[in-house]
């Protein structure tokens, strides 16, 4: 299936959870936060939250700033 991740269309395995999606993208699971269609997914829900087909996903992390 295809989802938009940080504004770019990406293929991820059908029925992937947030954890599986991050692994497929090669993003470390530590230090990142995920929002699906504008709603924050709690870290404790990453393993059981399935990413819907066509979802708008934001994956954020800490960078230098402030």
């Amino acid at each position: 299936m295809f989802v938009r991740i940080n504004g770019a269309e990406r293929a991820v395995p059908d029925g992937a959870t947030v954890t599986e999606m991050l692994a497929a993208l090669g993003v470390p699971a530590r230090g990142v936060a995920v929002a699906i269609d504008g709603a924050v997914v709690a870290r404790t829900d990453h393993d059981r939250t399935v990413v819907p087909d066509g979802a708008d996903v934001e994956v954020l992390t800490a960078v230098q700033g402030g």
Partner: protein
Amino acid sequence: MDDPLVIGDRQYSSRLITGTGGASNLAVLERALKASGTELTTVSIRRVDTAGGTGVLEVLERLGIDPLPNTAGCRTAAEAVLTARMAREALGTSWVKLEVVADDRTLLPDPVELLDAAATLVDDGFTVLPYTNDDPVLALRLEELGCAAVMPLGSPIGTGLGIRNPHNIELIVARANVPVILDAGIGTASDAALAMELGCAAVLLATSVTRATDPEAMATAMRHAVLGGRLAHGAGRVPQRFWAQASSPPR
């Protein structure tokens, strides 16, 4: 711990909070952070770069420094609240430096959006440290909402113009029951010392260190300036006089 900085449920021995923004690379940043003696430092929340790592977090972990996520770049309360909630999941901290700015040229806080976001985040269990104008009324309103500290600017972010309205900072300090942290506008060590002499509990700075010609040396200078200013504040300075008063005996 001697004379600790107490914010919410935490205590720090250092009264200098440094930001990570503006450093040319992580090695320079790490040396500067170490030299500053800071125990709390700001980070921003941005989209992951799948090519890069979470380098800045590794530096903070190595130095034992707590991350303080900010909401830099947010223009509305809704954006700031979402960013704070993302930061909480990413970093596992409910502390946030709340920034809601009005425009890119001044980067001045938008007081209406700031109060709105602060109220929502306090209700949501966050420890909120708001970046605010040097406005004694707004500072009091933020404290009444339940903010754990108030962080008035000395002058706009990144200007290095120092403290433009010292009397307002003193007014804020005089009425606050939470720590007042001078945030933004520090240019050099004397600005940081002045903030502490005015009674601020701590100083938050980034640009003045990270963009100095020698960030490590300036970080050291800031550490000493904050210590010196704090001691001077407690020591009871002499009154300023119009006419000279000899300090040597007459004969």
